[in-house]
């Protein structure tokens, strides 16, 4: 498996696709930083957590870094996985690899791990670059708690990306055509990211609670909520802690790290299990898929 992992990693790092993704991520970081530089002065520092504001402050026209990341992570995940298996199929390499003395699961494990690795490096690098520049910009070092929060946020982004990658790999196994697998992954992303939350749920949900429940079926919502809880300790999520009406009576007071963690724990497990389900289905389908003549 190490051999396959190594080759896949080498492939990723030398591919134009990865170069473009890195560029996108860099641009996003630059945009986020610029947004923060515009907005951070206005943002009150009465609650502390100045460093986290680097990530969450939006400018006048430019959205904040976390919004950029929430947008890009699914794209990166899909881009890393959408042609994992079917490109090998269409180029005729899959038969050759599978006729070598390797277990079939090594092929898919190697691909998934290589993707995860690339994703981690990409997101880790982004966070570090932003932190570095941000430190120069605002001159306030992060506290230990902020570092912890950022690290947990990083873990979340990687798992969120892994989910989309797992989904894309699943489609790449199910569909022979690369275009079909790419489009279906994007379709699912658009559906949950936009239509589900802003069009379908408001129509079918009768109560606020029901609407929240339904919204949380979308992995994007889960990630968004987790991000907010982690990076905006002051924020009280509607429905997460309290009902909407009580919100206005609350004294603005940041949650402690452990409290925040407790809040996002279900989100984390859900995202991990979603990823595991995607990978599990891919695994089973791939193991059973027959190599056919023609």
């Amino acid at each position: 498996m190490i051999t396959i992992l190594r080759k896949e990693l080498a492939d990723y790092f030398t591919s134009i696709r990865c170069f473009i993704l890195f560029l996108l991520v860099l641009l996003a970081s630059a945009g986020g930083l610029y947004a923060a530089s515009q907005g951070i002065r206005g943002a009150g520092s009465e609650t502390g957590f100045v460093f986290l504001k680097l990530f969450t402050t939006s400018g006048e026209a430019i959205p904040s870094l976390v919004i950029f990341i929430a947008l890009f992570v699914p794209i990166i995940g899909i881009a890393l996985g959408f042609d994992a298996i079917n490109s090998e199929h269409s180029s005729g390499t899959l038969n050759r690899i599978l006729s070598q003395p390797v277990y079939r699961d090594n092929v898919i494990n190697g691909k998934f791990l290589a993707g995860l690795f690339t994703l981690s490096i990409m997101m880790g690098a982004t966070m570090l670059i932003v932190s570095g520049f941000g430190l120069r910009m605002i001159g306030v070092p992060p506290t230990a708690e902020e570092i912890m929060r950022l690290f947990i946020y990083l873990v979340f982004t990687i798992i969120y990306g892994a989910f989309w990658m797992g989904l894309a790999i699943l489609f790449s196994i199910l569909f022979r055509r690369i275009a079909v697998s790419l489009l279906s992954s994007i379709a699912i992303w658009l559906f949950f990211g936009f239509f589900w939350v802003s069009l379908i749920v408001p129509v079918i949900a009768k109560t606020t609670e029901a609407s929240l429940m339904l919204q949380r079926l979308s992995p994007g919502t889960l990630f968004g909520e987790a991000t907010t809880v982690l990076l905006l300790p002051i924020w009280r999520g509607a429905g997460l802690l309290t009902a909407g009406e009580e919100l206005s009576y609350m004294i603005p007071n940041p949650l402690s790290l452990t409290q925040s963690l407790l809040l996002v724990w279900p989100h984390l497990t859900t995202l991990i299990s979603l990823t595991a389900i995607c990978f599990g289905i891919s695994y089973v389908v791939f193991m059973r898929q027959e190599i056919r003549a023609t």
Partner: protein
Amino acid sequence: MGKKIAVETQDLTKRYDGVTVVDRLNLHVAENEVFGLLGPNGAGKTTTILMLLGLTEPASGSARVFGFDSTREPLKVKRLAGYLPEKVGFYDNLTARENLKFIARLNNISDAESHHLIEQVLQAVGIADMADVAVGKFSRGMKQRLGIADVVVKKPKIAFLDEPTAGLDPEGINQILDLIVSLPQTGTTVVLSSHRLYEVQRVCHSIGILSKGKMVVEGSLDELGREALTEGRYRIEVETAEVSPRLIKVINKIAGVRKVETKGNLLQITTDSDLRSEIAKVIVQSDAPLIQMKIQEFSVDDIYMRYFHEG
């Protein structure tokens, strides 16, 4: 023959969506021979090879490669077997050398060991000068050559080649066929499928003809050829300056001669065995000048066509 069996199948059957592609196939390939799998398109040649490699599971029956069950112990079979798929593909962004190195690594061949080996096989298939060019720039024929190199590099005990000469130029075909012929000497049994009968004739010791998933005929090329043409007999053609009735009588007396026919100065003699030297002696003794004599050759074409009309 007392030879060890390399490949053996027992009532091997495969169905795709209710259609029987391979139907109770019994195949035997002896060790260190070149076995040709013939048959029209869709006869089940590729499917048979896939089942032998354990890439596809049979519906019923079993396949054994060097004693290992292809379905239950595919990894052991894959360790021994090299496979050249019909539509061979490589990683276009890697060079020929890197592609081979990857395969060598998957086969647990150390880089130090494979380095030398790769050089050798690239030389053997005639693309050594392209070793460091990305495979994406290769022509169809060069990829095919690399495919052969890819099989040979793991030094398999058995090589399954699906249409090994497809897409090659005449020179390339010769080169590859020479390579295939030399494989049994280094301990590699070859099973190849092909449509090009003259190639099969050149390299194969035994053949099996498939039609609609069934084995029509299987055996060594010599036997089958004679079987097809002359019901197992030899046919010797003799050209002399003049044919006299006395000469025919003398030839008829040789033990083993079945029939003598004349066509002008040409004598067609049907015999039970190769009696060329005896016949030559008789002709020379009878003072008739012998111009030429040849044993009738058969081609795989003849075998193929004959069994095809029957099957």
